[in-house]
């Protein structure tokens, strides 16, 4: 596959190129792919590997001529969840980073628009982290609120 040849590593996985990179290599690699036909940045996704203590960020890119999907994967430490922002390469990355910051709490250095995105007034832990106990949270937040007393057909 073209992306694997370009970057000199990676493997084919279900018809896509899966390329494991370190955090320092990612900027160069995205640039290189962008210059060589991978001009569609599809999305940035994040996986929380709780037992390995890692977050995996996956940069998905698409090449229209070759019809090739490349996934650039980076592991970052769960306790030191900082990553360099890539939004200068593709402007849409800014929005993805904003979402991941909200849902996983990862800080992207260089992205100064990490403001609340989908959630409103959210002072709690980022909800998509695996150690966010959503059942307990539901109990505390929603189930603790009482029903309104009285008969439902009752008027004033």
């Amino acid at each position, binding site marked *: 596959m073209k992306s694997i040849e370009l970057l000199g590593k990676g493997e084919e996985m279900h018809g896509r190129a899966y390329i494991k990179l370190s955090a320092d290599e990612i900027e160069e690699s995205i640039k290189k792919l962008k210059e060589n036909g991978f001009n569609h940045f599809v999305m940035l996704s994040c996986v929380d590997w709780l037992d390995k203590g890692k977050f995996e960020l996956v940069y998905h890119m698409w090449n229209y001529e070759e019809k090739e999907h490349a996934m650039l994967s980076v592991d970052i430490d769960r306790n030191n969840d900082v990553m360099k922002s890539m939004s200068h390469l593709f402007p849409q990355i800014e929005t993805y980073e904003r979402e991941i910051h909200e849902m996983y709490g990862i800080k992207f250095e260089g992205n100064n628009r990490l403001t609340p995105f989908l959630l409103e007034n959210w002072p709690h832990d980022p909800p998509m982290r695996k*150690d966010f106990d*959503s059942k307990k949270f*539901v109990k505390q937040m*929603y189930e603790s609120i009482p029903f309104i007393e009285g008969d*439902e057909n009752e008027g004033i």
Partner: protein
Amino acid sequence: MGLHNGDKMMRYEEWSKLARKASKRSLWMVHFCTGCGAIEMPPVMTSRYDMERFGIAPMATPRQADVLLITGYLTVKTLRRVIQVYEQMQSPKYVIAFGSCTINGGMYWDSYNTIKHLEKYIPVDLYIAGCMPRPEGIINAFLELMKLIDEGKARGWERYQKYYDKYKENQRRVFNFEVKEEEKEEKEQKREKNEEH
């Protein structure tokens, strides 16, 4: 004009009975399209099920509407808007809630972001069970609501006035839910543990 109080009361009763009889045949609805139920509304409105034969019509603004349809799950963020819409409507006003999500959370029972029981925040006159109810169910609910209005049993809006403080308190609690002290401590412990590793 020389009428006794009792007479006035009786007149009021009679007139409101008449008003209810008339208004139940012209329900204007504002459908708050959240969740999956919005997609069930077009067949109900258009020629297949044709809700207008019962005098039900969609209305563009809440101020002129009688019925508020909540068509599925609500996030806390949407609930805030729903309450704004509900409070803009003029009495008498009715609420129909669709699907199991509004009844007890449905398939989002453990979601961090959707409310579980709609009736804790605004009064609901009628629930339609199902995930999602079919158009027949919706038409059926409207007919049921008409019956309730006729019998003077659809009085959610009166409940909202009567227990206003309690509804407001519940709304405030869900909007400004804060992490409790013990939870904060737990978080601290977790962090320390992580750092030790």
